[in-house]
């Protein structure tokens, strides 16, 4: 299978005046084209750090990251990074928020604008194009943030607990929603989450990290014998509970 992302022996340490915090030790894994991988791990173990490294916001101390076979530095692959908070700008309308990435990358054209309108329409925000973020519900804001990422046509999506700011019910629907959107658009995605059931219902594979400094404890492929593999059907399947318990046990095995 074609690998879009490859990490080899990644180490990262934060340095501050108070001392150093090792965050990641010897992380190696890869992401295949069109694959959806979830990363779970205890709070503060280094999950966001891992995504920041892949997005190129920080550079690893040791190890290498390859994207589509090229080193991260030389890679021209578009990586979409959806942060934990939607970070929509209140001084812009939803439509102009969605255009932000295009503006920053000087890609505004009639075609990309049309694509923005189209995505807003498909994902139910057409009537809110002229609204400001504070007029939208949490789920709608999250969808707007996703569209802002998708309109750049990224090949790899990094999602950092994108649903954690939502209440439980919205989280289920928006999570399923966004999961479907990503599958429809055939993106390769890396999802960081606290929520095991979210991981099991959305991903093809779950990577379990140990506590800080994070190392990969185990990788669990998720295989469901379903006719229609949707998050909702997964939740109702018998395998769901088994996978949930397996990951839960793996996460808590040293406590």
């Amino acid at each position, binding site marked *: 299978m074609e690998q879009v992302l490859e990490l080899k022996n990644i180490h990262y340490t934060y340095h501050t005046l108070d001392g150093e915090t090792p965050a990641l030790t010897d992380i190696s894994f890869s992401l295949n084209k069109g694959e959806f991988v979830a990363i779970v791990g205890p709070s503060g173990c280094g999950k966001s750090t891992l995504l920041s490294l892949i997005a190129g*916001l920080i550079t690893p101390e040791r190890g290498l990251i390859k994207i589509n076979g090229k080193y991260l530095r030389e890679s021209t692959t578009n990586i979409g990074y959806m*942060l*934990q908070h939607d970070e929509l*700008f209140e001084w812009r309308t939803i439509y102009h928020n969605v255009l932000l990435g295009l503006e920053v*990358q000087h890609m505004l054209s009639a075609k990309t604008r049309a694509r923005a309108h189209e995505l807003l329409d498909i994902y139910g925000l057409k009537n809110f194009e002229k609204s400001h973020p504070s007029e939208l519900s949490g789920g709608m804001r999250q969808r707007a943030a996703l569209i802002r990422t998708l309109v750049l046509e990224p090949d790899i999506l990094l999602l950092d607990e994108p649903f954690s700011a939502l209440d439980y019910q919205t989280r289920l629907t928006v999570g399923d929603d966004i999961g479907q959107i990503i599958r429809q658009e055939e993106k390769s995605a890396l999802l960081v989450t606290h929520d095991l059931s979210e991981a099991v219902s959305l991903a093809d594979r779950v990577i379990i990290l140990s506590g800080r400094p994070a190392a990969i404890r185990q990788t669990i492929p998720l295989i469901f014998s379903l006719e229609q593999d949707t998050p909702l059907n997964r939740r109702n399947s018998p395998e769901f509970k088994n996978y949930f318990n397996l990951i839960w046990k793996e996460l808590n095995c040293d406590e």
Partner: protein
Amino acid sequence: MNEFSKEQLNFLKGQKKHRRIVNISRVLILFSFLFLWEFSANVGWIDSFIFSSPSKIALCFWEMVTDRSIFLHIGVTLYETIISFILVILISVLAAVCLWFSKKLSEILDPYLVVLNSLPKSALAPLLIVWLGANRMTIIVAGMSVAIFGSILSLYTNFITVDPGKIKLIYTLQGSRLQALTKVVLPHSLPAIISNMKVNIGLCLVGVIIGEFLAARNGLGYLIIYSSQVFS
């Protein structure tokens, strides 16, 4: 569109009342301020030689209107205030942007800005005359000196309160630091820049008038000194 519900009409009425209260209160505050000024000058709470009083100004104003010289004085002061105001805004936005770009620079300059800002600028006006001569430039510099350091500090302080997540967003979109400035920091700080301008136009006027007290042949500051000498 023209069909308003009862609630909407009530709301509009409420808004109208609100506006009326705001307007009346504004006028009221102006008059009570003038009254207090006049009163305290008459009673002697404040030195009318330096502070003058509304009645003295009004009397002199009328005299000046009749011989038309007032318009020259107002024009001169207005001109000097606007020039120093525009310079203050331009320089302080530029300086705050530089400080924001370089954390090192801002840390190095921070104590100097704090000290410069807390200097009694009006007391330095005579020094300015010695340095720059008794001309229009001195007065403009005096106007700027009152506002500029505080303006830089408050703008910079506002710049660095931007949510770091929003700046991180720009970087995740492969943006540069310059784009973080233009797309996030400046729009975020626009309200602060505007309120800063409101404060600064007043401060510049104060500075210009202080300058005119000492170094001018015309302008409102000169006029105040002149009239208090004539009437006191």
